[in-house]
């Protein structure tokens, strides 16, 4: 069996093309049933996300060319696209290359943001759709299970997903660099916009115990505060709130500074040098940059956050190089196990073959044995066959054990991992 992968992704095709190709779950199932004919294309699976549409299939090896063409054709026909429309956007990989591509996709090495965790869930979903459609067979089962294992290895053995790459998560990351853990710390949100809400969610997930909200319009503050079980603070009492908060997140549309150096120094009379982390995601800025001169105050504006993010992306890319090595060695392993898999039916056939050889030998030497009764003849045949079986048994058993060790039934599916980020 050969593995073929045909598709487009965010690197090869613009959004206009990808949206034409995107499959809904139902379209996936019906499409797969059409595509998999049991002759040329034996098994199939469609991964369709906003960044990629890929068709993975197991094809008869002697009809590889035919199979690849058929899949490309299927994409054209199914979507009623003009001829040659996909030509420049589409890529196709075979065998080792296809396996490597799938491993890289699931490990999020092929993603727009390297290390983002969603793509693994999307592959998992695509697999369950294919299972329901009945188009995932022996080969794809094994391949997909192996893929989950690779993705898990990449996540645990490299720091590919270790550092935050979204603005809303930055408050958590920077807070942790100052306070280690955000458990039992207080957060003050100034401004009740969408970004404030998203960041607050991340902070709550990180264990923040108390959320204070200050906003020009008290209603919006009240609403956001009640949503997170926090308290709203009148806008003119920010000093008091500042003396209690550990992380401050500023996102108002105010044209002037909301937090000034003087205000901060006043708050610090009560704080007794307890450090504070202030994050300003508003433009124009709401926190006077001079506030950063106060000891134990750490102020970050939107540009600073962007620079942490780009530094984190560089860290992720360094880790991605290590991940590629893992993928490489796993591709080898998979190819190996695929070769072993072809052995499965062979083991049964070998046993038959040995017995067949015993019978042929008996036929050849039959005349030399002279007159024999039916019982005697049966006894001789029985003797030969049981001898052959006894001799071949340990060898075949060894082979079978080897085969079973690489069977997908024995491979644990990775557990669903939840990630607070993105």
């Amino acid at each position: 069996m050969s593995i073929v992968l045909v598709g487009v992704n965010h690197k090869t095709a613009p959004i206009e093309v990808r949206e034409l190709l995107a499959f809904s779950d139902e379209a996936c199932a019906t499409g797969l049933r059409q595509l998999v004919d049991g002759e040329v294309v034996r098994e199939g699976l469609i991964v369709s996300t906003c960044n990629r549409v890929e068709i993975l299939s197991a094809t008869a090896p002697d009809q590889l060319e035919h199979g690849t063409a058929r899949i490309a054709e299927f994409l054209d026909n199914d979507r009623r696209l003009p001829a040659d429309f996909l030509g420049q956007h589409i890529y196709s990989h075979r065998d080792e290359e296809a396996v490597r591509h799938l491993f890289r996709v699931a490990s999020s090495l092929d993603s727009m943001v390297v290390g983002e965790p969603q793509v693994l869930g999307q592959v998992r979903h695509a697999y369950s759709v294919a299972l329901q459609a009945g188009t995932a067979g022996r080969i794809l089962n094994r391949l997909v299970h192996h893929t989950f294992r690779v993705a898990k290895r990449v996540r645990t053995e490299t720091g590919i997903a270790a550092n935050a790459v979204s603005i809303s998560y930055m408050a958590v990351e920077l807070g942790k660099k100052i306070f280690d853990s955000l458990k039992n710390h207080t957060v003050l949100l100034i401004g009740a916009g969408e970004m404030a809400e998203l960041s607050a969610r991340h902070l709550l997930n990180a264990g923040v115990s108390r959320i204070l909200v200050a906003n020009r319009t008290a209603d919006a503050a009240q609403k956001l505060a009640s949503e997170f079980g926090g308290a709203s603070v009148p806008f003119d009492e920010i000093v008091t709130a500042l003396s209690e908060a550990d992380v401050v997140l500023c996102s108002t549309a105010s044209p002037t500074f909301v937090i000034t150096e003087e205000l901060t120094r006043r708050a610090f009379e009560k704080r007794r040098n307890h450090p504070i982390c202030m994050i300003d995601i508003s433009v124009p800025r709401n926190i006077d940059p001079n506030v950063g001169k106060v000891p134990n105050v750490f102020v970050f504006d939107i540009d600073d956050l962007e620079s942490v993010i780009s530094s984190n992306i560089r860290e992720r890319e360094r880790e991605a190089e290590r991940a590629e090595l893992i993928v490489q060695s796993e591709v080898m392993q998979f190819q190996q196990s695929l070769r072993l898999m072809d052995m499965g039916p062979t083991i049964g056939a070998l046993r038959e073959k040995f017995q067949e050889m015993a019978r042929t030998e008996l036929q050849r030497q039959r005349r030399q044995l002279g007159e024999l009764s039916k019982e005697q003849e049966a006894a001789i045949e029985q003797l030969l066959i049981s001898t052959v079986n006894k001799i071949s048994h340990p060898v075949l058993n060894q082979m079978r054990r080897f085969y079973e060790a690489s069977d997908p039934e024995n491979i644990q599916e990775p557990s669903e991992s939840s990630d607070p980020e993105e």
Partner: protein
Amino acid sequence: MKSLLLAALAAYLIAAIHSILAFVNKRRSVQRVAEWSIAVGFILHTCALIFDWAIDGHYPLFFLRETLSFLAWALVGAYAIILYRYRAEALGAFTMPLISILTFIALIVRSGPQDTAAAFSTTWLFPIHTTLLIFAYAAFFIVFMASVMYLLQERELKLKTFGAIFHRLPSLSTVNQLATTSAIFGLTLLTLGIASGMVWSSARDGRIWHNDPKEIFALLTWLLYFLLLIYRSSANWRGRNAAWLGVAGFALVLCTFFGTRLLGGYHVFGLARSPTFLSTSLGKR
């Protein structure tokens, strides 16, 4: 037991290399190798100290060789506790090479005549005095390292450079807490060490204070860390200033440790008697 100490040194070197590698590439598997090597090295080192004690017949903390070896051993112990309690792995990249160097010097320096040491093993107060102080030095070294890490990380956050240090050093609150806890331990040990020294000295010649450079430096060190802790607890004084004090304090600790070697005084034992002056007088504390 030179061979045991040599084996311990080998383990420490492996740990040092892996700690540095783990610091650079942040591999958990590499860090694990470092931690196992530390455990093995510590056990070997402990055995070496016990055998030394049994074979030489005196508490293995008299000559320079023994002092350095004991100090290295105390530092390994301190780092192991910190790893367990704070997971401050970054510390190992700096501490393990230093421990390896101390152990290496301990291996190549010769001991003085055994009889000088024997004279001091008659009383149990002398070993207690020296042991307490070695542990105090180890604790102050941790304060120093934590303060340096604090200053580096704080600088990174204030200047917003977000380089390698930002990603690798522990959080400000971790190093701050580490420095405070170590300072408390260090000061307690130093207090007990000085007190035991006074008791021992008064038993020897009736005087508890000799105005000797080592004693003066020890007193200054004690005052400085006492101030540091008073400030930290009463005025909640933390951050850069406290960290700078932790660094300055260690300069005083070094003066205390080496003070005798440079300035002489009461704490120099057996200097006139011994021809191998370097190896013996430097060993006195």
